[in-house]
C-alpha cells in the first residue's frame, strides 16, 4: 500500500517534466519542414494539392500548432495516444507491437552489463595493480571509448559474415514458423550480437564504478572488524563488502536507464530489430507526430518506472534510507 502511494506520488511529481518534454518535442517538430501528409504523399508517389489539403483537414493538421497540442494533451489525459497516420493503426497498438523487442534488448543488456560489471569490478579490485586488474581496466577503457555502432558493425562482419555463427540482423527467422522452445532459441541467437553491442559500453562504466567502490569499501572499518572476527577474504567480500559496494552501482543503473533507451535506437538500426528505437527513427523521418509523441511518452514512463524500482531496491539494500523516509 505504501509502495503504491509512493509510486503515485512519484508519477505525479514527474507530470510537469513529462508535459515540458511533450510540448517541447511538439514545437520542435513544427519547426522542421514538411509534415505527415508530405511523407504520405511521397509514399503514394505524389498527388494534387487538393488531396493534400483534404488529408491535412482529416488529420487535424490545418489547425494552429497550439490547438493541435491542446487537442493532443486532451486526448492523452484519457490515455488515448491517437492514430498513426503512417501505419493506419492506433499508436498504442504500434508501440505495443514494438515494445517487447526493446524491453528484451534492454533487459538483457542491463543484466549483462550489471552482472559483468560486478564480477569484473570485484576481480579488478581484488587484484589491484596486478595483471588481471590491468587487463580488465584496459579492455574496459577500450569498450568505453569505442562507439557502439562500430562494435555492432564489426560484430556483424566477424561473426555473421566471416564465421557465419550468428545472424546479421532481425529479431527472428521470418517465415521459418518456429514455435515454443525453438523460437525462443532462435530469438536468443538473434539477440546475442545486439545485446553485446549495447551492453559493452555500460559494462565498462559499471566495472569502473564497481572497482572504485569496492576499493573504497574494502578500506573501511567494518571490513577490518569482519577480518578481526576471523572471516576469510571471500566471506568478507560476499557478506560485507559487496552489498555496500553495490549502492553506487544501483544509483547509476537508474540514472542510465534513459541513456540505454537512447543507445537502443542505434543498435536497433544497425541490427534491423523491429523495436521502439527504430520506430522512433522511422517516425521522425516520416513526420509521424502522433507515434513519436507516443514513443516519448512511453519511454518517459519506462524511465520513471525503472527509477522507481531502483529506489525501491535501494531502500531494501540500505536500511538507513528507509529510516530517513
Amino acid at each position, binding site marked *: 500500500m505504501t509502495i503504491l502511494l509512493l509510486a503515485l506520488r512519484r508519477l505525479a511529481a514527474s507530470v510537469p517534466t513529462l508535459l515540458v518534454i511533450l510540448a517541447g518535442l511538439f514545437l520542435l517538430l513544427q519547426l522542421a519542414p514538411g509534415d505527415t501528409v508530405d511523407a504520405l504523399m511521397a509514399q503514394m508517389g505524389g498527388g494534387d494539392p487538393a488531396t493534400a489539403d483534404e488529408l491535412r483537414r482529416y488529420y487535424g493538421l490545418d489547425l494552429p500548432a497550439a490547438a493541435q497540442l491542446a487537442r493532443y494533451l486532451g486526448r492523452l489525459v484519457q490515455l488515448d495516444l491517437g492514430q498513426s497516420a503512417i501505419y493506419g493503426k492506433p499508436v498504442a497498438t504500434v508501440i505495443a507491437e514494438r515494445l517487447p523487442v526493446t524491453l528484451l534488448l534492454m533487459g538483457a543488456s542491463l543484466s549483462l552489463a550489471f552482472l559483468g560489471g560486478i564480477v569484473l569490478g570485484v576481480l579488478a579490485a581484488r587484484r589491484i595493480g596486478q595483471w588481471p586488474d590491468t587487463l580488465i581496466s584496459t579492455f574496459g577503457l577500450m569498450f568505453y571509448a569505442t562507439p557502439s555502432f562500430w562494435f555492432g558493425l564489426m560484430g556483424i562482419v566477424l561473426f555473421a559474415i566471416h564465421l557465419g555463427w550468428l545472424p546479421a540482423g532481425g529479431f527472428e527467422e521470418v517465415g521459418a514458423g518456429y514455435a515454443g522452445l525453438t523460437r525462443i532459441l532462435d530469438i536468443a541467437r538473434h539477440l546475442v550480437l545486439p545485446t553485446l553491442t549495447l551492453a559493452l559500453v555500460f559494462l565498462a562504466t559499471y566495472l569502473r564504478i564497481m572497482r572504485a567502490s569496492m576499493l573504497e569499501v574494502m578500506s*573501511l*572499518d*567494518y571490513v*577490518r*572488524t*569482519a*577480518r*578481526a*572476527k*576471523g*572471516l*576469510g577474504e571471500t*566471506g568478507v567480500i560476499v*557478506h*560485507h563488502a559487496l*552489498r*555496500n559496494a553495490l549502492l553506487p552501482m544501483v544509483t547509476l543503473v537508474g540514472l542510465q536507464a534513459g541513456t540505454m533507451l537512447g543507445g537502443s535506437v542505434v543498435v536497433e538500426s544497425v541490427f534491423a530489430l523491429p523495436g521502439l528505437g527504430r520506430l522512433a527513427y522511422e517516425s521522425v523521418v516520416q513526420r509521424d507526430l502522433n507515434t513519436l509523441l507516443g514513443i516519448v511518452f512511453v519511454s518517459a514512463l519506462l524511465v520513471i518506472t525503472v527509477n522507481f524500482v531502483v529506489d525501491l531496491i535501494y531502500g531494501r*539494500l*540500505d*536500511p*538507513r534510507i528507509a*529510516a*530517513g523516509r
Partner: protein
Amino acid sequence: MSGLLSIENLSVRLPPGADRSHALTGVSLAVAKNEILCVVGESGSGKSVLANTVMRLLPPGVRPDAGAVLFRGRDLVGVPEAEMRRLRGREIGMIFQEPMTALNPLRRAGDQIAETFRIHTTLRAREIREKALALLAEVRMPDPVAALRAYPHELSGGQRQRVMIAMALALEPALLIADEPTTALDVTTQGRILALIREIQARRGMGVLFITHDFGVVAEIADRVAVMQSGRLVEEGPADAVLNRPRAPYTRALIAAVPPLLPRARSGTAAPAILTLEGVSKTYRKGGGLIPGRARVTHAVRQVSLSLPRGTTLGIVGESGSGKSTLARCIVRLLDPDTGSIRLGDTDLAALSRRAMRGQAGRVQMVFQDPFASLNPRRRAGELVAQGPMLQGVSRRDALAKARELFGLVGLDPAAMDRLPHEFSGGQRQRIGLARALAMEPEVLVADEPVSALDVSVQAQVLALLDSLRDRLGLSMLFITHDLRVAGQICDRIAVMKDGAVVEAGPTAEVFAAPQAAYTRALLDAVPGRAWIPGRPHVPAA
C-alpha cells in the same frame, strides 16, 4: 605471571616514502592472563600499529621485519593466514575505536554478532541466537531482544560499542585487544564502557591489551602501563609507578600536560558583562514535507540565558547532542536563533539582519574544532588569516602585514605564511585558525572544542596560548568543551548543558567543589581517572 602474549624486540617496517622507516622499533612487551596492559602514546607513536600487528591486520606494505609476537608460545608473525583466521575472533578478540563505522551499516547487530559463531563453530541458528542474547545481556545492552534486530544506525554510539564488545567476547577469547575503544564516546558513556571492560576482564580472567592516548583512562583501568613515542617503548611498569613516579622525561612531560581535574584560580570577578544571552532557543525541523504533523522537531537549544563578564572565560560543558555547538553557532550567527536576544555590548546580535550582521562579524569570532577540515586546503596560510580584514576593506598589504604580526603572536614562524594548510601539524593549524579569528580584532572569541582533536602535549600548549592571549589582548572567551579537565584548566565560570538547556552555571571552583545538579555530579564522576591527580600519589578508586 603466566605469559599470554609476549612481544619480543618487534620492528615493523613502513612502506618507502613514509615519514619514518619503521612504525615500531625494537618493542618488547608482555601481557599476562588476567591483567590489563595499557599502551599510551600520542598520535604517530605506533600504538595502533602494535595492536594491528598482533592481529596481523596491517595495511598492505606495512609488515614486521624483525622480532616475534608470541601468543601462547607461538610466533604469530610466521603463522599461515588460514591458521591466523582461526585465532582471530576465537582466541584473540578486538574492539576498535570508531563505533560509528566499525559495524557494517547494512546488517543487523544480532546478525553481526552471530557471524562470529558461524565462522568458528557449528552451532545451530537457535543456539547462536540464544548466545547472542546472553552476550548482549552481559554487556548490559538495554533491551537485548530489540538490539538483536536493530541496524547500527538505530543504536547510539555507546550501544554500538557494546555490540562491538559482545562480538569480540563471543567466543571467550583469552586475549582482548582494545584500540582506543572509548575515545569517540561521551564521558558518561566512556565511564560505563570502561567499567564494563574491567568487570568482564576480571570475571573471565582475560588478558587485555588496551591502546589509548588518555592518561585519565589509563589511571582508571590499567594494571600495567607502557608508554610509547615514535615507535619506541619509552617506559613500562605497574600503573601506580608509571603514573605517579614516572622515570622517563617523555612520560613526565606527557603527564605534566594532562590538566588536573581542579579549577583554576578565578580572575576578573566583578567585571561587567560583555555578552549576555537571554532566552535563546533554536529548533531544528526535519522531514514531514507538506504534512506538518510528521516533521521531527529537535529542540537543540532551549531558553538559554548566560552572561560573559568582560575579560573572562566562560566554559560551556556538555556531551554530544547537548546543544553546545548549536549555541555557539547561534552566537556568531552562523545559525539564526528562533527566539531570545544575544547582547554584545549594546547591540542585539540576534535581531540583526544578515547584512547588518556582516558589519558586526568582526566583533565575535569563532575557532573551530577540526583543525584539518576548517582551513581551505587550497589557500596559503597567510591569505587565510588576511582574508577577513581584506573583506572588511583593509588593503592587501596592510592585511598581510597584520597577518605576519599575528603569526608571531600565536607562536608560528611568519616565514610559514606562504605554506598551504597541509604542511602544518594539527596544533599549528589550530594556531592558524586562532590567528584568523584574531585578525578581525574580536571582542569575544567563541572557541568550539578547539583542543579536542589535539594530542595532550599540543593541547596544553594551545590552552596556555589561549590563556595568555586573553590576558594580553583583553579578550573575552566562550569556550565550548566536553572535557571537564580542560574546562577546569581554562574557564573562570562554567555552564553545564544537557538536552539543550543549561542545568547549572557558576564559578568553576564552586561547580567542581559542590555541583548542584545531578547531571553535573554524574559528569564529574565519569571523568576517567578522577581520583588520580597528576603529580600526586595515586588514590585507588573505591
